[in-house]
């Protein structure tokens, strides 16, 4: 029995439950890699004893603190069941009752976490809280006969509560203590046989700039702890530890082929198991070239694009090994495409709670540490290729790390863009524009599918390393050639060869030739396509394993009805996993078991042995199951001749079996369903023509989820709204009334959900998506009803601006906003109102042009701008309205005229003012905006003030406010600076700093105000103005460049400074500049061209530049 427990501990999550008697537990027990520890002891020493070099302890006292990574071994949750309280005699009965109910709450949550898979080990004690009655209460909800709870040190007799659970097969008890179980089963192998030196246990060794010296650098394992769940720092041990005896080459080659899709199999590269694809040389050359350009502006990250099955994952790992072996740059390999590196903002009761991404900070810290160890650049490789906007994630991460000043280069993967799909409809254009804008930010390398010398390489590996006879390889090739397009054919034949040779030995199967083997495999898999027997092979294997695990017993004793049920469950299970895997989505293991309708710990072990499935764990430590590659999943679906509708049926099954996972906040199943629905949905141009016949069914199922099961998962409801809008609302063949009716329904659902969210809270991203979805539906409704109700539009636009406020990168929000403006403008009949609308539109354009270059550069946005500016041309009558509008307190007329003149003169705030005519136009606009007649209204117009600021700047400095690169010089008189300062001061007087730093204009005005202060020698005011700019690291995360240098008549102003401190490792320090009095300024050592950083050293001829966070001291050249 204990053997079985030990075996389960290898494959399942293990939780320790202990009371005060933890003190009796040996270090061996406490140091075990628990997935969670729960305790009734309030003793703080317990967490000290649990602490070790391989994990961080996180104390949890209430169910609300239970995080997503609840079962993470590296971030061990120590659940204090008593909520940090102590049981003393002085407690009242009510207090004890409260504590007991907290215990019950927490334990119930723990049980829900392990319900489908996982075990709890309890060291029995005479705990007054953790009574056997309570234990029964909590654990009786577990499945019977699954033995998920083990009580050690159990000597009680006649305990009716525990006896009941023993009878039900829920609890197993042992007389001996956990200590003796661990002594017996967890041998001190590491201590006795591990000949690593002590330092090796505490650190990893790698090379940094050691191309010539071979010098090894050590990095403490503690520093790697926080990144271990999602990334790996390549090191000597990792690549060299696994020694493979020759006779195991073929076995390990098979493991390499199978598991490389899951995660890099590092041993394989050392042993030459990887087949080098033709594009790898280009990938390597480009990476090298970019690595040598790290630090230069516009060093684009590299994207390896290619279809599934082109070997991108193996190529990336091979690249990592190759660069590592050159011993110059450290390499970090991120293997988790889903990892969240971004600031997460919770939205509840109109309040935002910011949660920094621990992963991002951990990664940043590690890179910094590598830089401190001398790394000139760090290569980050992120295998992201998935349908979940991988490229965008990579772009954001790269920018965010650069913003922190990290010297990195990044390579990632993405699926190829499908350019050959017919492109229709406006929503398509919007999606494409977003995608194409993004893709332009990358340098690209194409992973080609064509095979060149790969077969020769494969033959070499098989013949030379795996001992395959020449004729055997020829035989495989012969079969492969029959189905040449289908290289998986080749692959599975190889698998069979590798398996046959090793595991079957002399037994029957081994003596069969490959052809005979195909005949040997039974034909009851209902795969109709005769040519596709690859899957018969795979499925025979899967079924064998399931039978072995005792899951499917097709023996005679089972009634045929039951057999049919089992067959259906099995088919559903595999089909659903296949549909998910086709889109590179992995199914949570618990969910898969629910589809299979069986719970047995043996399944996971057995399925992991098949070539077809892979099982791995996500960053939270939960198992996930998928078919090895999306290509195999797709081929399986084809072999089964599964139509799009049948695939939709699978999604329906999943929706009906889905649990919301509210128990511990991960919503993994809902997220999976949402991803699937989104990927096949009407907004995905690659898939919408395949799956559109089933959209109505999906809508029905989603509605069912809400109405019948009362499940309101925001991400799913958001999809329902999208589907309704796109399927019914946009369907021109449907009667208008029906379309309106459906749209109203979608809006109603959205409003109801938004109301729920107000109370229950969600992430800001989800809320934003929902607002945009709702706005799109509302807009469509407006179009259909030809609404002119400005109140309605105002609310709609306000909602969208709020979204933009929270996430300045939300392209869809901008698009919808501009569309709303245009629709309203088009529907509006009143000329005066039209002009006001035009002003509002132009203001937003200015805002985007100023701050959001990603969106401003996109073709879609530029088309919209052209369209909107075209309205200006039609507004010849505007000038007539200027006064009327001004009398009514609006500067819209003035602004529109100014904008029109600027546009006519092709004056762009981003470009240098060249030519007299442009100069004249600017002066003309300046006169208009400063005309005394309009002074009052202009001062109160944000748009006018922004225009005025830029005009004054351009007229006097010629060069634009923001140029390319960094460290810009200005050349303006003191009087002009005062004028600019006045504009800024007026701006804040009238508009103030708006709530939470979000309107970009604020930051811009604040920065220019700070610059004016510096130029006018009001340095303290400059520092405090910059302090007011809260660095928006959540979304923009722009690199903190030095923008303007303080200048006098075009020459930088010089300062003297005294060094206060200097950190050799960071190569940065603080320096006191007399003019800045009490505020020491930051400097980066190499920028000062000196080697003497001793405290008190005086350095002359320094220059000061301003960034969005603070002034920085530099020296632009060696003196």
């Amino acid at each position, binding site marked *: 029995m204990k053997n079985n427990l030990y075996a389960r501990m290898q494959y399942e999550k293990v939780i320790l439950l202990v009371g005060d008697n933890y003190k009796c537990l040996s270090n061996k027990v406490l140091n075990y890699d628990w997935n969670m520890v729960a305790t009734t002891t309030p003793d703080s020493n317990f967490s000290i004893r649990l602490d070790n070099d391989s994990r961080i302890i996180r104390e949890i006292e209430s169910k609300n603190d239970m995080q997503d990574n609840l079962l993470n071994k590296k971030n061990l949750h120590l659940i204090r069941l008593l909520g940090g309280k102590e049981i003393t005699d002085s407690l009242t009965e009510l207090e004890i009752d409260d504590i007991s109910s907290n215990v019950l709450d927490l334990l119930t949550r723990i049980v829900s976490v392990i319900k489908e898979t996982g075990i709890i080990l309890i060291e029995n004690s005479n705990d007054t809280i953790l009574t056997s009655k309570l234990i029964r209460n909590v654990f009786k909800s577990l499945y019977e006969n699954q033995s998920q709870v083990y009580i050690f040190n159990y000597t009680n007799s006649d305990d009716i509560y525990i006896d009941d659970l023993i009878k039900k097969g829920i609890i197993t008890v042992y007389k001996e203590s956990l200590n003796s179980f661990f002594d017996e089963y967890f041998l001190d192998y590491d201590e006795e046989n591990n000949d690593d030196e002590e330092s090796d246990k505490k650190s990893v060794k790698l090379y940094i700039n050691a191309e010539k010296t071979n010098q090894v650098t050590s990095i403490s394992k503690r520093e790697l702890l926080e990144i271990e769940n999602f990334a790996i720092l390549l090191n000597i041990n990792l690549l060299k*530890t696994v020694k493979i005896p020759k006779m195991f080459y073929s076995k390990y080659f098979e*493991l390499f082929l199978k598991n490389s899709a899951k995660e890099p199999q590092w041993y394989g590269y050392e042993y030459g198991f990887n087949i080098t694809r033709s594009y790898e040389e280009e990938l390597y050359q480009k990476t090298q070239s970019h690595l040598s350009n790290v630090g230069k502006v516009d060093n684009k990250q590299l994207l390896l694009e290619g279809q599934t099955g082109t070997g991108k994952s193996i190529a990336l790992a091979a690249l990592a090994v190759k660069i590592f072996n050159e011993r110059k740059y450290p390499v970090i390999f991120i293997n988790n495409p889903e990892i969240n590196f971004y600031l997460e903002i919770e939205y509840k009761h109109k309040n935002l709670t910011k949660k920094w991404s621990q992963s991002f900070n951990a990664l940043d810290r590690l890179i910094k540490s590598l830089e401190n160890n001398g790394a000139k650049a760090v290569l980050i490789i992120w295998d992201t290729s998935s349908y979940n906007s991988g490229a965008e994630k990579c772009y954001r991460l790269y920018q965010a790390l650069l913003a922190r000043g990290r010297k990195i280069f990044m390579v990632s993967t993405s699926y190829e863009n499908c350019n050959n799909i017919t492109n229709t409809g406006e929503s398509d254009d919007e999606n494409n524009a977003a995608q194409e804008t993004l893709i332009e930010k990358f340098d690209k390398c194409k992973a080609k599918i064509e095979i060149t010398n790969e077969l020769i390489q494969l033959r070499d590996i098989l013949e030379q390393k795996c001992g395959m006879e020449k004729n055997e390889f020829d035989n495989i090739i012969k079969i492969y050639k029959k189905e040449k397009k289908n290289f998986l054919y080749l692959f599975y034949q190889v698998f069979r060869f590798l398996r046959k040779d090793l*595991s079957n030995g002399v037994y029957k199967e081994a003596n069969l030739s490959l052809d005979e083997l195909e005949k040997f495999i039974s034909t009851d898999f209902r795969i109709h396509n005769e040519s596709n027997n690859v899957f018969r092979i795979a499925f025979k294997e899967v079924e064998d394993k399931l039978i072995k695990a005792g899951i499917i017993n097709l023996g005679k004793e089972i009634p045929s009805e039951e057999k049919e049920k089992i067959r259906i469950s099995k088919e559903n299970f595999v089909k659903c996993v296949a549909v998910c895997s086709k889109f590179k989505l992995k199914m949570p293991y618990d969910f898969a078991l629910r589809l299979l309708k069986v719970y047995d710990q043996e399944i996971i072990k057995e399925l*992991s*042995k098949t070539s077809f499935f892979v099982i*791995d764990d996500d960053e939270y430590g939960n198992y996930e199951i998928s078919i090895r590659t999306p290509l195999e999943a797709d081929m399986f679906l084809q072999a089964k001749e599964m139509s799009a509708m049948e695939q939709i049926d699978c999604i329906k099954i999943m929706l009906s079996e889905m649990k919301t996972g509210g128990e511990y906040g991960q919503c993994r199943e809902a997220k999976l369903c949402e991803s699937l629905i989104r990927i096949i949905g009407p907004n995905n141009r690659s898939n919408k023509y395949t799956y559109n016949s089933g959209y109505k069914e999906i809508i029905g199922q989603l509605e069912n989820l809400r109405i019948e099961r009362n499940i309101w998962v925001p991400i799913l409801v958001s999809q329902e709204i999208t589907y309704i809008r796109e399927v019914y609302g946009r369907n021109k063949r449907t009667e208008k009334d029906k379309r309106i009716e459906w749209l109203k329904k979608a809006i109603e659902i959205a409003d109801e959900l938004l109301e729920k969210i107000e109370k229950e809270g969600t992430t800001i991203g989800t809320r934003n998506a929902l607002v945009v979805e709702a706005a799109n539906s509302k807009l469509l409704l407006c179009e259909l009803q030809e609404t002119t109700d400005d109140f309605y539009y105002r609310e709609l636009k306000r909602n969208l601006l709020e979204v933009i406020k929270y996430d300045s990168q939300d392209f869809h929000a901008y698009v919808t906003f501009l569309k709303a403006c245009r629709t309203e403008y088009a529907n509006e009949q009143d000329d005066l109102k039209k002009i006001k609308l035009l002003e509002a539109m132009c203001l937003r354009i200015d805002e985007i042009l100023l701050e959001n270059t990603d969106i401003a550069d996109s073709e879609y946005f530029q088309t919209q701008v052209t369209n909107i500016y075209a309205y200006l041309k039609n507004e010849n009558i505007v000038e007539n309205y200027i006064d009327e509008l001004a009398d009514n307190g609006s500067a819209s007329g003035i602004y529109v005229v100014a904008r029109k003149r600027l546009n006519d003169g092709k004056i762009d705030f981003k470009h240098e003012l060249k030519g007299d005519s442009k100069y004249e136009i600017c002066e003309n606009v300046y006169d208009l905006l400063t005309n005394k007649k309009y002074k009052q209204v202009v001062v109160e117009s944000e748009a006018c003030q922004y225009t005025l600021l830029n005009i004054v700047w351009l007229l006097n400095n010629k060069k634009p406010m923001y140029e390319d690169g960094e460290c810009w010089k200005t050349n303006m008189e003191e009087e002009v600076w005062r004028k600019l300062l006045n504009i800024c001061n007026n701006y804040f007087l009238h508009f103030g700093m708006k709530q939470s730093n979000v309107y970009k204009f604020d930051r811009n005005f604040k920065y220019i105000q700070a610059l004016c202060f510096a130029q006018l020698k009001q340095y303290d005011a400059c520092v405090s103005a910059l302090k007011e700019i809260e660095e928006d690291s959540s979304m923009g995360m722009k690199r903190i460049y030095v923008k303007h240098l303080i200048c006098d008549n075009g020459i930088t102003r010089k300062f003297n400074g005294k060094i206060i401190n200097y950190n050799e490792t960071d190569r940065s320090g603080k320096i006191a500049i007399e003019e800045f009095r009490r505020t020491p300024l930051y400097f980066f050592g190499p920028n000062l061209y000196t080697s003497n950083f001793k405290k008190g050293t005086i350095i002359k001829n320094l220059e000061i530049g301003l960034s969005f966070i603070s002034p920085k001291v530099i020296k632009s050249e060696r003196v």
Partner: protein
Amino acid sequence: MENKTILEITKLAKKIDANLNLFEGYNPKNIAGKKDEILFWREIVTAYGIFCDIDRVQIKENKNLFTLFVKFNLITIKEKQFVLTFYREISYFRSWFCHNNNSELYYVTRKADNIKNILNEVIKVEYEINSPEEVREKDWDKLCSYIKMKFSKYLGILKKALDGWMNKKNEGITEIDKEWYKIYSNALFNDNELKQNILAEMCKYENINWGRKADYNIGTGIKLYEGTLLEKKYSSENIITYLENGKKMTSYAIMYHVLEKLIST
């Protein structure tokens, strides 16, 4: 030592039976440029490796290859005795060199006596040599020659026996093969070190498959596998069944397949 002869014997053995694995993985200590005492000990260790690490089946096991040869009249009892004595002498020297040799202990004194006899018989000087510590520099050469001569003679006997076996095989006599499988499978079954290495390798593979550290809890893994083998009544019979299939394999591979099959089914 005698690498060429050993290669010939290996080839001959394979001709007789695909699974007659002799000198498999033979990796003699480097003796190029070595002489006197260093050379002597290197030769001892190499010979010991053959009898105890590579081919325990030759002479170390109770039922061994040479008893088989005697049974089928391929060599004389005297010849077998010669090989046994040679093996023992090698063992005495190796043991003396590698261990502490506390003279209070029974087996140590017996071993010392035997070594003393050999030394005096080979070196033949006017005084009595009590232990290798007393061997003069110039006398090591005699000891080296003694070992070489005996090693050569042992290989000669082995080759003669294998030739005889081959002849019998050509005549269609197969009883000897069957008997050999029994002996060989017993030897493999008793080779605990080989078994432990293979089980460790299996644990390592499983660990890597699950993304764990290669060495994770190998000790317990071996223990559990041994439990399974006990449950499955693992015996030399399993090995015989495998050998009878006649597939050409190394001892390691044979044992791996037998153990893997038992554990995974």
